[in-house]
């Protein structure tokens, strides 16, 4: 007969093991993905890869019959332009919203706004892409009198809407972590609300806010589906926000299905994948270290 106590021990053991397996598998998956991406690209990376041409040539002709060229500069420019536009919009609005929610709202309104932001975060990216295609496209054509509305601007706006929820929720956490005693001190000295924001809260929460922005950038750089639909798919260095562009992610998504498995083209796409992986990894790691830095500082005092 198994006693109750033994049962408890056994079930605890099972639960603990399950949780541990889940945790370990998460790590294995990440490494597994990296390994897979790396393996697929490795053949090209170590034999035919020419870093200079790869990074500094704008000529992306992976399917040319006579002369295949794999320069991703224009595609990097595409990703960069879309990200810059997205951040130009998302940073002020995201930080502004976070400050508003955390410092100027109370009660029901605060709850409502937080739910709204979470709702925004839950919209699938293909839906955003659809909005870019069906709503933003005609809007941009009308407003700017351009032939095509699928542009860097369109993708940037869509991406900003996708990055804002992350920026808001992490910034809000950072502001919440500012000790209330700082606010009291400043209020008792006669500070205005606006001065409070830029003289007390921003400096005190600056690391957290920076991390929020970085994670927003990470989101923008890594996003695929929405930009694929909204940016117009032209490999070129954009001269203005109203030019069509193509991003790194969109290139992979669009071309991988057509590239014969194991071909140079196929492998180059994986090299782009490694490059993207590295960028987002560095961004996230930096954000993580900044946030960890905050913890250490708070621990001291």
């Amino acid at each position, binding site marked *: 007969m198994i006693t109750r106590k033994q049962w408890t021990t056994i079930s605890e053991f099972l639960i603990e093991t399950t949780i541990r397996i889940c945790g370990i598998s998460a790590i294995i998956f990440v490494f597994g993905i990296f390994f897979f991406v790396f393996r697929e690209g490795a053949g090209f990376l170590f034999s035919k890869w020419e870093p200079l041409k790869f990074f500094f040539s704008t000529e992306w002709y992976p399917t040319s019959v006579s002369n295949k060229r794999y320069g991703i500069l224009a595609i990097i420019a595409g990703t960069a332009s879309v990200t810059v536009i997205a951040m130009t919009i998302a940073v002020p609005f995201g930080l502004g919203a976070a400050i508003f929610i955390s410092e100027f709202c*109370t*009660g029901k309104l605060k709850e409502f706004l937080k739910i709204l932001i979470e709702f925004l975060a839950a919209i699938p990216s293909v839906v955003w892409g659809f909005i870019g295609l069906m709503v933003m496209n005609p809007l941009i054509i009308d407003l700017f009198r351009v032939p095509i509305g699928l542009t860097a601007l369109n993708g940037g706006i869509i991406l900003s809407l996708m990055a804002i929820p992350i920026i808001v929720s992490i910034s809000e956490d950072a502001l919440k972590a500012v*000790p209330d*005693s*700082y606010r*009291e*001190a*400043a*209020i*008792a*000295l*006669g*500070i*205005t609300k606006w*001065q409070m924001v830029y*003289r*007390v809260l921003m*400096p*005190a929460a600056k690391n957290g806010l920076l991390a929020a922005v970085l994670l927003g950038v990470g989101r923008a750089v890594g996003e695929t589906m929405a930009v694929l639909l909204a940016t117009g798919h032209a490999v070129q260095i954009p001269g203005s926000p109203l030019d069509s562009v193509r991003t790194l992610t969109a290139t992979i998504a669009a071309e991988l299905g057509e590239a014969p498995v194991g071909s140079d083209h196929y492998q180059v796409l994986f090299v782009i994948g490694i490059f993207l992986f590295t960028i987002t990894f560095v961004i996230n790691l930096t954000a993580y270290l900044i946030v960890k830095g905050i913890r250490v500082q708070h621990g001291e*005092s």
Partner: protein
Amino acid sequence: MSEEQEYSIETKDLCLYYGDFQALNNVTVNISNGKITGLIGPSGCGKTTLLRCFNRVNERYGNVTTTGEIRILSKNIYDNDVSLINLRKSVGMVFQRPNPLPISVYENVVFGLRIHSKRKELKKAQLDDAVEKALREVYLWDDLKDQLQTKGTHLQLEQQQKLCIARLLPLKPEIILMDEPCSALDTEATQAVEELMYSLTGKYTIVIVTHNMAQARRVSDECIFMLLGELVEHTRTEDMFLNPKHKKTEDYIEGRYG
């Protein structure tokens, strides 16, 4: 400070509610100009609440209702034309836990000047002067003159609390409110802060909340005893400790509750 006024703080029938809970009940009190007034009473009797009425920082919690009248320097602070910013400029506050801002000592001291003046109006020399003067007044100058760039939050607690007093001074406040300013400090630091208070007498009207009977006795000229949101007794400190008028005051002073 204007000499003709006898009282810097006057309240009449002051009641304060946190939601439905009444924390102050018809408090009518006149606090003398240029003196140190002690505010004593058992924990939860409303000392902090009363103190925080005088610069209206209670209002940051949305659920506070106040009725009655408060006059600071003869001006009703609930009048529509009162600027909270100017009120708080002339009524400084020191908190229970030292709360310097996470910026340098120097910036802590000039923080008030920075928020109350336009950038152009502030000359470097003038700020340097203000810092030296304020730090000298709280006896921190000799200790800190070489570490003005240290973060205020990295100082010892005693220095932090003195810094919190120093940062009020450049704004030339008339009144300084202190809420148990020594409760986070050890005996020596407490003594140092008390000495500092003595030296400030006459220049400022000081209201100090304290849990410590001996401290109230040492530092204050007048004393107010509160119980359950009501003012029980307000007299000269000596009188209160030698022959309290009310039984409850006597019991409290002798440590029968609190």
